[in-house]
């Protein structure tokens, strides 16, 4: 019996049969509910013009000077992928990667934290909701779980549903079942922590492959593997930081984009047979200045980008409306104008891919989003 198995049995003994159902839930309804969505949030404001350089745009080279991506993988007459995105380029050619240009949440200021809050809470303002749009989405679904691969529960998944959990590599030490038994009545009497405690035993003890730093590729692989199970979470969340590139950004992004590229490949592998039913959405809170700043980096801007990836995506082309980089086309003369509200992308995924009703999405998941036109032709028929 492995240490893990011992631990699991210990937990079962500690909790008794009533807790069994919440610890190891039965398979959710199969069929329509079989699709998967993994959201990957890159915190810090990814420079979309560096990931997807518009190499043929006349203004690009002048704005970026010698910080322009010199040798993009040309995937389109106007755009190329950064050379670190080799595996992603292959997915693009296989029709499984759809880059969306000039996307941003409705927030239009330049604070990372407010922009991330806005992206995660699914409203137009940082304080527009205290829970997250994915959390509300789980509540709106009739069944199914959500999992964040994160040390703390991200805002995006908060929302009071007991079908949301998070996971991060555990400490090696197994927990004494007797201690759990003693703690059970104490936590049961604590109204704020009773549910957290009941679910804590289920979240712990899951294994982790590999050693060393737990970086984006490994987090994406773990999320995908968990989600690939027949009764696995239908919604997943992975986050990464380190995308704020004010200074000397070329080497920084070379490294980070290579990680993202590995992460997407790891997700495809992790999803395995579920890949054709999967959408991976890679998003960031805002874009950056169109021009390189005085320290070979870029400052906070507006229009960013998003990637939709997966077997369910009709990719192999560029989505979104490109506003151009000419002086008169830039927002406030400094950054890419956002032409697509990120909520429209999310809404389309929820309705067309996860099968939520339009009305439910506009009532509870993205309030005040009725006017946003859905994304067209993005889903593989």
């Amino acid at each position: 019996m492995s240490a893990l198995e011992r631990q699991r049995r210990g937990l079962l003994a500690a909790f008794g049969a009533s807790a069994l159902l919440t610890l190891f839930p039965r398979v959710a309804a199969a069929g329509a509910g079989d699709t998967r969505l993994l959201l990957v949030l890159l915190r810090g404001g990814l420079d979309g013009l560096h990931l997807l350089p518009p190499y043929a745009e006349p203004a690009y080279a002048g704005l970026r000077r010698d910080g322009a991506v010199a040798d993009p993988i040309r995937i389109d007459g106007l755009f190329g992928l950064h050379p670190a995105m080799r595996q992603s380029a292959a997915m693009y050619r296989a029709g499984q990667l759809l880059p969306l240009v000039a996307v941003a949440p409705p927030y239009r200021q330049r604070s990372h934290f407010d922009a991330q809050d806005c992206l995660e809470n699914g409203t137009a303002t940082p304080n527009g909701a205290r829970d997250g749009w994915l959390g509300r989405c789980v509540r709106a679904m009739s069944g199914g779980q959500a999992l964040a691969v994160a040390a703390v529960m991200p805002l995006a998944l908060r929302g009071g549903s007991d079908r949301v959990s998070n996971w991060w590599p555990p400490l090696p030490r197994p927990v004494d079942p007797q201690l759990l038994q003693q703690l059970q009545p104490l936590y049961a009497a604590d109204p704020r922590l009773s549910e957290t405690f009941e679910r804590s035993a289920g979240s712990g003890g899951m294994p982790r492959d590999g050693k060393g730093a737990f970086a984006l590729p490994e987090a994406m692989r773990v999320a995908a593997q968990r989600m690939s199970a027949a009764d696995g979470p239908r919604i997943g969340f992975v986050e990464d930081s380190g995308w704020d590139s004010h200074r000397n950004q070329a080497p920084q992004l070379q490294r980070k984009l290579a990680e993202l590229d590995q992460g997407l490949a790891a997700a495809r592998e992790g999803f395995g047979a579920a890949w054709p039913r999967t959408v991976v959405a890679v998003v960031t809170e805002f874009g950056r200045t169109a021009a390189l700043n005085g320290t070979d980096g870029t400052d906070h801007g507006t229009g960013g980008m998003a990637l939709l990836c997966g077997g369910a995506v009709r990719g192999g082309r560029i989505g979104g409306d490109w506003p151009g980089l000419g002086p008169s086309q830039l927002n406030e003369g400094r950054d890419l104008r956002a032409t697509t509200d990120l909520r429209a992308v999310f809404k389309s995924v929820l309705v067309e891919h996860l099968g939520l009703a339009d009305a439910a999405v506009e009532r509870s998941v993205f309030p005040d989003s009725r006017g946003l036109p859905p994304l067209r032709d993005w889903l593989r028929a």
Partner: protein
Amino acid sequence: MSASKATAANRFGLGARPGELERGGGDGREILLAQLRRPPALDAFAGLPGSVETMRLEFRQQQLNRAARVRRAAAAGDGEPAMAAAADPAAPVAAADETPPRARRRARDADPAQAARERSSAARAGAGADGAADSGETLRRELRRQQLAEFAARYRHAADTDAPFVERLSQFWSNHFAVSIDKGNARLYAGSMEREAIRPHVLGRFEDMLLAVEWHPAMLRYLDNAASIGDDSRAAMRAQKLGREKRGLNENLAREILELHTLGVDGGYRQEDVIELARAITGWSTPGPRDEDAAQSFVFRANAHEPGARRVLGRSYAEGGQEQGRAVLADLARHPATARHLSFKLARHFVADQPPPALVERMAQAYLREDGDLRALYRALVESEQAWSADARKFKTPNDFVISALRAGELPVDDQARALVGLLASLGQPVFTPRSPAGFPDTAADWSSPDGLFKRIQAAQMFAARVDSGDISPYQRALAVLGSQAVSGDFAIGLRRAGSASDGCSLLFASPAFQWRV
């Protein structure tokens, strides 16, 4: 409202050590006010290097690494990179011991302890060398060792201090002015920033702390101001004349000063204010490898400073070199929006996730009335009835959970503290590594996930296994650290019946009562 000692220790302090609740005055409020009257002893930090000293080691290490690369390239018979590297004036060939620069000699004359520290760290690093191949590596290890010693000192002090309220405040400000060691060039300075810029001012004026922080290499590097250059500065002009690539303004630090450090995101500033403040603080930088004489870790680069008057929040600031930015910060420190922002965050930290607005307003008024005196702000907090309310509850952060377990279990923190650093990372609050300049979050929703609670239970067992029970039973220990009100019913029974001291302490540290500040 009674101000109990248990509340003073758990809501305002770092959790009691056995014996702490029996000591001091009769009233919790008076115990806290007494801590504010005298600066605490900081013995745990003696002997740690200052940021100037660390910077010299850092530059020396870089120099040795470059020299090693040159040698390797030469040995490989690849002449071209070797020549290119040798042509770089910042890459001298590894030489014998450098002549100590004037400033260093001055510092040694003035401070024998400093001289002793330098000797011992040089000896440990074995860095006198005439360029042994692994000297850069040796220095790298030495810097890593110093960083661990710094972290160990931080937790040893928190575990031992007799002024835990003041330590909570120090760590609060350290998180308010968050820097992250995951940014490479700021990595070595987060600890010294807390020691050099936060602790000396924690019982002083906010303006002084603000300036000390914004001048510290940790912050100047973390938020990129060290490399920011005014677009019309002499440095930019010269670069243009020489046909070199234009360097320029970086607004990162200015934005966070306004959004996070002073006014708050709703404090009424606009993008123009960000740019104007960024211009006002151009030239605020740190020494580079060529500034051997630097006696401070802050330098003002007049050449990089944007000339001219600046206008921030409707007020004009005449050209004045480094004083210009300082004048803006002085006004920001006194701004009513700053008073409210700081008061809200402090009230949230100590009292409730959604603190009573009247409490916040009262604190802000005290701050403004006393010209930004932080003690006045803390007194307004401690003297309010709301701060002692029975409803006020805060869920401990992982950091505070760990410190309170160290205190309750009287656990020693060893010099390496590797295990402690690893544990805090596993619990979701790695030392000096918030995910953004906004610092670690501060509400129950941020920290009370099932996964987080499971890891606390694991950690509780790990701590309990190390507790030396002496002659205190787990039940007595629980009474001594939580107070009698919190130890009753099933909890008390479980503690009394514990089969071993370790089992009992596991139950104590893992209990819900231990996760809350009440």
